């Protein structure tokens, strides 16, 4: 091992030479090398690593990183109409403030005695999500919506003892890729056709595919293409009649105006809480959830940690404890059909703050304003010669498909022109759904003002010329 010269770093208190010497003396050794006696010499690195820096002072570090980040253009600077699973919504200042609190930011696995506040915030997140979903059992966060979906499909397989899952064909390709990878061992996944006209599920096809080998039917409200299933209750009923479990993926921010999934018969709900107060972070912001009825049949198959509120044994207080910890991969290990680990609890705390601020009225208003603004955007875009908006006529929430076939231009060309106007145009669907031609998925939320939408329409008018 090479010898380090005096190196004192502000993050390392005992790098102060005098302290280090004193501690070595306590151990009766001359050099730290001696403590590494179990590592064979030939496995030890004989040289200094070749790494950037060090940028030891904060100004140097900040200059270095900010110099690199300067090449980014954020959705604060440009007008953004991209969604497709990661959405730009208004973020209350309080969300950032609370998840920036060092107590939450730097906590980890401590239990209820030391971290009661963390568990209470998590419980409140679960509780408020439960109110929106109409469900009593809500998981601790999963990695993301796709992970929640994958685990839910596997749960359904174990609950029903069946191996086939039917997934709505409009599922995002990346989500499907993730589910296919994850469910490969236990389940076969088949896609239910959807209408290229409405974007909604082909119910006749569903009827034909349903049989006594189907573990679950998965669909989305709204789906990847922005369209909700008007016959949700029928889909759930059809699944139930076949002895299958219905799983619905929902956009959490829509639930102030859209029915709770439980109300139309969904057995399991999955989705993402990023839309509830978390920044997009290049997609880093996603946070998944799984919810269902609070029955042992379901509870026993959750892969996630589950935390219950509970009275202290002295009876005078309440705390929080793990429900059936032995169910998880931490205990099941090599027998575990799924696994968990560190996921995204900070995002759950963030969503708790968000929902507490919004309240029922805020959730209703945000849902309504999104619907109105999206409809206005469609109307403005539809006025532009050559543009078809919406290209799918099923009921939409915040996203809608725009078709550019009659402009003679590709989405890529149009988005390049929009970029010149400081606009991130919709997500290009042309390679994913070639049969839909030159189409893009646009997302409009409460943050888009009339002026923003008008600016998009004006820019598109020029871009398609």
């Amino acid at each position: 091992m090479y010898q380090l010269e005096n190196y004192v770093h502000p993050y390392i208190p005992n790098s102060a030479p005098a302290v280090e010497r004193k501690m070595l003396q306590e151990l009766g050794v001359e050099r730290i090398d001696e403590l590494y006696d179990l590592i064979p010499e030939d496995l030890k690195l004989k040289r200094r690593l070749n790494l950037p820096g060090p940028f030891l002072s904060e100004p140097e570090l900040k200059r270095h990183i900010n110099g690199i980040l300067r090449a980014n253009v954020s959705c604060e600077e440009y007008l953004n109409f991209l969604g497709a699973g990661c959405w730009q919504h208004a973020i209350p200042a309080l969300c950032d403030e609370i998840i920036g609190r060092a107590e939450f930011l730097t906590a980890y696995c401590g239990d209820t005695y030391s971290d009661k506040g963390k568990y209470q915030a998590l419980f409140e997140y679960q509780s408020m999500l439960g109110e929106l979903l109409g469900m009593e059992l809500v998981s601790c966060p999963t990695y993301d919506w796709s992970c929640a979906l994958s685990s839910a499909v596997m749960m359904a397989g174990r609950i029903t003892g069946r191996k086939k899952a039917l997934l709505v064909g409009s599922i995002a390709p990346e989500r499907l890729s993730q589910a296919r990878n994850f469910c490969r061992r236990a389940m076969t996944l088949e896609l239910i056709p959807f209408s290229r006209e409405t974007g909604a599920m082909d119910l006749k096809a569903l009827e034909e595919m349903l049989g006594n080998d189907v573990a679950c039917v998965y669909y989305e409200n709204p789906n990847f293409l922005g369209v909700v299933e008007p016959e949700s209750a029928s889909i759930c009923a059809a699944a139930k009649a076949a002895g299958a479990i219905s799983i619905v993926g929902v956009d959490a921010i829509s639930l102030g105006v859209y029915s709770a999934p439980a109300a139309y018969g969904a057995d399991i709900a999955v989705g993402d809480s990023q839309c509830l107060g978390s920044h997009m972070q290049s997609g880093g912001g996603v946070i998944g959830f799984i919810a269902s009825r609070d029955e042992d049949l379901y509870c026993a198959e959750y892969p996630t940690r589950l935390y219950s509120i509970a009275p202290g044994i002295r009876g005078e207080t309440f705390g929080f404890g793990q429900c059936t910890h032995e169910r998880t991969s931490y205990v099941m290990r090599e027998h575990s059909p799924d696994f968990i680990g560190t996921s995204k609890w900070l995002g759950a705390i963030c969503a708790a703050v968000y929902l507490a601020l919004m309240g029922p009225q805020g959730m209703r208003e945000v849902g309504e304003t999104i619907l109105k603004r999206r409809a206005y955007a469609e109307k403005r875009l539809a006025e532009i010669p050559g543009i078809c908006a919406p290209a799918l006529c099923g009921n939409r929430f915040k996203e809608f498909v725009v078709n550019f076939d009659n402009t003679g231009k590709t989405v890529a060309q149009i988005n390049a022109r929009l970029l010149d106007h400081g606009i991130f145009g919709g997500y290009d669907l042309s390679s994913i759904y070639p049969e839909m031609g030159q189409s893009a998925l646009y997302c409009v939320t409460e943050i888009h003002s009339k002026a923003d939408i008008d600016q998009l329409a004006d820019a598109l008018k020029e871009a398609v010329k």
Partner: protein
Amino acid sequence: MNTRIKEFQPAKWNEPILMTMTSPGERGILVPNAEAEIDAISAEAQIPAGLRRTDIPALPELSQPQVYRHFLHLSQETMGQAVTPDISEGTCTMKYSPLINEQICADPRVADMHPYQPVSTMQGTLKLMWELEECLKEISGMDAFTFQPGGGSQAIYTNACIIRAFHEANGNADKKTEIITTACSHPADAAAPNTCGFKVIQLFPEENGYPSVEALRAVVSDRTAGLMITNPEDTGLYNPHMKEFVDIIHSVGGLCAYDQANANGILGVARAKEAGFDLCHFNLHKTFGSPHGSNGPACGASGVREGLKQFLPVPVVTFDGKTYGLNYDLPQSIGKIRSFWGNVPVMIRSYAWIAAMGADGLRKTAEISVLNNNYMTKKMCQIKGFALAYKTDSPWHLEQTRFTCEELFQATGVTGSDIRRRISDYGLQSYHESHYPVLVPNPITLEPTETYSKADIDYYIDVFREISEDAYQHPAVIKDAPERCLVSEVDEHGWCSDEATRAMTWRAFVRKHGLPDFSNG
């Protein structure tokens, strides 16, 4: 004796559950008003009748200062790493998360970026990911990394998928069906390959704390697809036969994946490459200074050697010498593991941490974490009733140590779990006993990372010494713990698990128990 010891009092706000605090009509935040022309559009008409919400969700109605105060109180009732010397959470690498990195990640050019923006507008992010990959390649000796996994367990799963894909590509998938791991590797090293479809075989430690070469030989066969192993294991012991293990697996055509979630004790000292590993993973939220976030955001960075790159999840970051890009076109890729490309701010914080430390800083991190641990270990073993969990070959551990208080338990009836509750009465985080399987009685696993000063460690030891004295003199104090914490023990196996009583949501609680009187907090 440290005089601070008895004076700790946690903040105790008796904070009610949010749902009970509602005050009808109060508003916490307002939604931007729709302009007249937009407002005239009907929202309701756009929702199919069967999907229109008819009930009002029972969310609380509260003004902004009320919500602020509530969550501030909850934060004060949480013992984050920054608040206390968190030596307790062994295997978790609870280290200082530099504040400057939080400032960097709050910038809209990190926070408010969309993953599908044109790559020309995210060159900064892609460069940072590229540079981080270069750093981790150097630190591990691997040839390529993905940052897509959202945590360590997902990285282990990714590596299991790559092992499967490798054998499939070689036409050996039917033969290569078994993964070998060790009982003291993280539980995900067993669970994730099982999820992936492998049969998992576990090796148990000998008296000296790690499995023997003979034990490995006994289970290796043509069916062996690979080895997935932590080293040093959760016990803080480095298995000196690592290279032999790897060679044996390679001799039957298997791959070796190194779980380096916690690489804190060997940064710049030993690498996956020299030990012969084909894959590895680092937890960026552990070793590389990104905060743990109350249990995430996290990032498991999976690394592979040349010859396995084609199996990585898509997209991968590319660089042609001028421009950074994202390549989705890897025909042999295992596909997507997590949405988009992973937890980008965690990557940026980790790059910033590496850049702030430099090569010498990484090495210093390892050295001081090992020095701290051996200093603490020596002192712990001097306390009556506490001892090392294993009869180790060397007097030294790496960055963490597993202890046992079995002797204390036999003499006093006080268990490790009792002590775990008790130390929170002294302003310390409840400690990690052991992952499953629990192989030594009354285990305690501690890890004093480089973040903690000698005084922090001395305080920690003083607390244990006092607990030991109490245990031998008046054990009830420990058995009834916690005394000063916010809540007494809860019944996890009964109340929290029984369908009739458990409640993961408020609505479940109210249905099962009615509206409670929580006036005492």
